[in-house]
């Protein structure tokens, strides 16, 4: 957080946001020259040569992961390539951080948006805008055969691992509250990365992991016979890319433009092809016409 470097920052929008954040301390508000209600436009993104993205370390197979050589890939990666073709955006510059840092980075204006399959939850909708969904991101219970956990009702009295700031964590908190109401408890352990809680499930330190269905399926495929998917932990959730709310609402805004591209990709069959490529089956999607990105 160095005030002097904000001068040299390539984009006025990001500089304004950082300066705005600093203004909270300094009470110097002229950095808001842009005014309210303005959004990042696709023109602006093209002018700076491409997207600047802060997202999760690639550990969300098959939506978002890396091969052994570290090459980024997955459905999210492919989808953004397709979207970029439609919107004529040359490149995407990725910075990857622990999950708990992703949405705060978006909020602080350090990332244009987050092109990763993020579970659409009511709590997140209050702060963020979700583009048209691309697939399923429901939270399921991953456990070992020896725990005899068959569903969410078996979790009281057990130790459950979750990733900090994840939909799995929010689901675990809700289940914990429910258990407490009937005089029981669920012990929740919060990890920085999904891989760590999966490792600890194998190490028998925890009894179950509450995680999105996609990485659970990928993990079970890699470790056949060792783990069990005990089914949905709660209501099903869609997976969608996430934006700041103000980046929707006018023609040319990145939110509206990405949605336009996603609609084209659904209509021409690309989304279905992507789901088949990465998941091997088609996933249900909502009606885009009634989907509200900003609530």
């Amino acid at each position, binding site marked *: 957080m160095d005030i002097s470097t904000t001068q040299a920052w390539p984009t006025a929008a990001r500089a304004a*946001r950082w300066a705005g954040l600093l203004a909270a301390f300094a009470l110097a508000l002229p950095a808001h020259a842009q005014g309210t209600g303005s959004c990042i436009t696709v023109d602006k993104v093209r002018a700076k040569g491409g997207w600047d993205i802060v997202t999760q370390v690639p550990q969300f197979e098959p939506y978002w992961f890396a091969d052994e050589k570290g090459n980024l890939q997955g459905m999210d990666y492919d989808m953004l390539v397709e979207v970029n073709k439609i919107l004529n955006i040359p490149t995407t510059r990725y910075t990857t951080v622990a*999950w*708990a840092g992703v949405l705060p980075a978006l909020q602080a204006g350090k990332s244009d948006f987050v092109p990763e399959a993020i579970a659409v939850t009511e709590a997140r909708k209050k702060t963020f805008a979700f583009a048209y969904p691309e697939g399923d991101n429901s939270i399921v219970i991953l456990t070992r055969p020896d725990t005899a956990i068959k569903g969410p009702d078996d979790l009281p009295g057990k130790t459950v691992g979750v990733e900090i*700031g994840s939909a799995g964590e929010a689901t675990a*908190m809700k289940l914990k509250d429910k258990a407490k109401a009937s005089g029981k408890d669920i012990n929740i352990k919060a990890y920085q990365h999904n891989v*760590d809680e999966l490792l*600890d499930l194998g*190490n028998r330190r925890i009894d179950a992991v509450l995680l999105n269905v996609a990485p659970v399926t990928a993990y079970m495929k890699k470790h056949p016979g060792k783990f069990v998917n005990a089914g949905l932990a709660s209501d099903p959730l869609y997976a969608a890319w996430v934006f700041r709310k103000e980046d929707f609402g006018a023609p040319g805004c990145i939110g509206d433009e990405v949605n336009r591209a996603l609609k084209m990709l659904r209509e021409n069959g690309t989304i279905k092809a992507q789901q088949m490529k990465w998941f091997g089956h088609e996933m249900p999607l909502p009606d885009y016409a009634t989907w509200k990105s900003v609530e």
Partner: protein
Amino acid sequence: MKLDFQALFDPRQVTDNIDLLLAGAWTTIQLSALSIVFAAAVGIVLSVLRSSRWKVVSAAARVWIELIRGTPLLVQMYILYYGFPSLGITLSPLAAAALALALNSGAYVGEILRTAIQAVPRAQGESGRAMGMGFIATQVRIVYPQAFPIALPGLIGEVIDIVKWSAIGSIVVVPEATQVVSQIVAQSYRGFGIMFLTLALFYLALTGSLAALGRRLEKRMTRHRMRLAHA
């Protein structure tokens, strides 16, 4: 874009979560205290081994110290917590974090103690022996009391470092203050300004009181010098 300062510094985030925050603060204090005690033990053992007349022993202690000082604490903690179960040793989060902190800090403490002992003039120990005191009596009654004040500033620095480094206990799921704060912030994305500010102030209060305590101790231990200076 309009930044919601009210949301960034919403004081209700602190008051609403006060129970969680206090529990996290208490865990930080426990983890730090545990690590400090073990680091002292590790340090004393290492300083003795390092000063050993047997070359094999002192060389082994030196290799160990270089190994610990030459690798990041984060990596050490990861290995202890996530790596050791494959050797059949499954440590609890608190145990793994405290052990990593103690082993890491202990290597530095060992060197601080050893150099402090060496800084005491040899003639002091020799005089003791000449007066007919045994080796251990000389060390305990003549050398160590003079070495400790020399080591103290370095040791206080280590204690403060342990408190600050305890924050990375969150990577091995110890629910200490930093983890609790990031969890609360990650759930709602509200008030991260005030939350991290509160967290910083908590660490500052803790390290500040430890530093003050250290200064008092130092004054007490060197008052004989003061008296001489004023005489």
